């Protein structure tokens, strides 16, 4: 019986891409709802959207784009044998995730303090279109935030594997796949940002 601990690098990557497709379709359902309700309540989406702070949204966009850069570079670093740089960059990614979530915490707190949250009495007082806007906003950014946390955990786990050597310059597909997941988190936000924060007209 032949030894076959041979690993299929391309297969592992392909499998990860397949998984990313499912995440795209998962958020896709929320984007379908957004699109339908935007078409139905154009004015209310503008008035509700203008209540979101572009600075939080834009800031978080820059944070995620930079974290994506870190993760992408970390792969090059690992493959070039620069293990410390790689780990540093991954740590930077996790810190970016933390900054993102802290921003989100402040953003949500401000809204919740004003009585704007799913199922609140206030939601019945404002126009239906605005109420819907905030509902989808919370659910979409909430689900996205959950994925930020999951992504950060995956990166942390990958850092441990790099530390113990099982992910290295010869066998780096785990880092690559962790990176793919992180980039997906970034991609979803690239669409969330304009759709929720830049609806001004």
């Amino acid at each position, binding site marked *: 019986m032949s030894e076959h601990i041979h690993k299929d690098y391309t297969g592992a990557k392909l499998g990860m891409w397949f998984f990313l497709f499912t995440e795209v379709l998962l958020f896709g359902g929320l984007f379908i*709802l957004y699109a339908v309700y935007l078409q139905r309540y154009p004015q209310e989406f503008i008035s509700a959207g203008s209540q979101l702070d572009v600075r939080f949204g834009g800031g978080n966009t820059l944070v995620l784009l930079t974290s994506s850069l870190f993760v992408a570079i970390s792969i090059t670093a690992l493959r070039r044998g620069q293990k410390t740089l790689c780990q540093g960059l991954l740590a930077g990614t996790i810190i970016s995730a933390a900054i993102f979530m802290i921003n989100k915490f402040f953003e949500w707190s401000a809204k919740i303090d004003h009585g704007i949250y799913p199922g609140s009495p206030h939601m019945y007082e404002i126009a239906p279109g605005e109420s*819907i806007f905030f509902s989808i906003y919370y659910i979409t950014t909430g689900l996205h935030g959950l994925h930020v946390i999951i992504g950060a955990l995956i990166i942390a786990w990958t850092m441990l594997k790099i530390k113990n050597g099982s992910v290295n310059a010869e066998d780096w597909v785990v880092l690559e796949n962790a990176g793919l997941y992180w980039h997906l988190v970034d991609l979803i936000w690239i669409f969330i940002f304009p759709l929720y924060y830049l609806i001004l007209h």
Partner: protein
Amino acid sequence: MADAKMQAAGNRGFFDEGHYSGIRGWIFSTDHKRIGLLYLWCVVTFFIVGVLIGLLLRLELFAPGETIMTAQTYNAAFTLHGVIMIFLFIIPGIPAAFGNLVLPIQIGARDVAFPRLNLFSWWLYIIGAALAVTSLFTGGGPPDTGWTFYVPFSVKTTTNVSLAAIAVFVLGFSSILTGLNFLTTIHRLRAEGMTWGRLPLFIWSLYATAWIQLLATPVIGITVALLFIERVLGAGLFDPALGGDPIMFQHLFWIYSHPAVYIMILPGMGVISEIIPVFSRKPAFGYKAIAVSSLAIAFAGSLVWAHHMYTSGMSDMAVLIFSLLTFIVAIPSAIKIFNWLATMYKGSILLDPPMLFAMSFILLFAIGGLTGLILGSAATDVHVHDTYFVVGHFHYVMFGGTGMAFFAAMHYWLPKFYGRMYDKKVATISWIIIFIGFNVLYMSMKVVGMMGMPRRYYDYLPEFTGLNMLSTFGSWILGFGLLLMFVNLFRGLLKGEPIENDNPWGAATLEWQVATPPPLENFEEDPVVTHGPYDFKKAGIL
């Protein structure tokens, strides 16, 4: 090739080989064959539970008025029947059980691409099933919304829809991961010489199914998650008082659930495509057409979901276009039927049990499919929507179709994995009884539905009594046939005659060229494929 020495020594292949022993050797196994059998027995168990509930439903409908259960119990019973049959039997059914058993061997691989993920899929299935069962006894009791969970009732009902929603989410995840695994396996692990053009048609069907599992299932995931959020937080996404649209729930629900019916039927069609050539002793007619039609069905099936919503209040434009598109799906399905029949034409037909179930698939699926046209056409659908005509239709395609294919697969492949043969005469008799019971049960439904009897009602007008009684009689005949079939199968697989020949049916696909039962790693050496899957001459069989 046949390893008579190993068989004589009582070698049990993968049954004897594995990392752990005892029950841990099964529930922690990453061997696709063990996982396949685990799925098989779970799925069969849930099928039997679903059948029992179905028999109870028919008992209630034997006479008008309350017969053996209250209306509330009836609503919970048909919800449960649907949820169990759809999420715990039919959707995983053939792909998870037979796909796992057969796929890697048929493509010449040692296992799937991600064996541990495969095990995780099974665990998710078990967890999802446990959550579903738990929802029966906790919260407000079993959901009474129908398996479709339409809002607003599903948001307002005090029954345990919340837990059921979580169960569906977990089960969906199981399905997604299986699809992902199969796609990667088929792309990456085909043996040398196993080109796309030499793949068995069962593999083509699993490939097309896996794409649907991958891309459509996430949408039911988000849908039940939103339902859960509605119930728990009152977000109002589908509540008009808060700006929502209840029809949007239906869109999201059917965007998955229509393609889901193709997850159900495509693998069944794949099984039929395997069996017909073998038992006609003739290569499959129109191999390319059958392969491409699987992909076409998967694609076309993603375009037509709103044909479940003609009476929902959606726009006339949508009604028109979805009705038009629905007719298109019939084309690749018909192509398969023509090719199966052309394969049989001038073939040397062997009427073994797998073939009997396969042939009845063709007839019953055709009947179900034709009634689908009446439903797909918006004008006629308006009259039969939510009547027993629909119930008759989908039982013909799902039970007469996939169900029969599942039975065919059991009778075809299980002897290979257990190394024993069941009593073919008893299997044939069980098939006859099943076939008769099935048609009495479900044809009556189509007639009474056309006459106007609504579905999901525990009571009905007196003029529908005769047909309801007839239908219930049919259910008893069917139930008896199923009992006979399962008892015969179990006895055969556990205590039947050991099969002498590794290839009792004379097939040319790879799973029949390995020892019986197959060894842990499937192949002694990685196979090199030199002919097509139905090339009996080149395989040296004819």
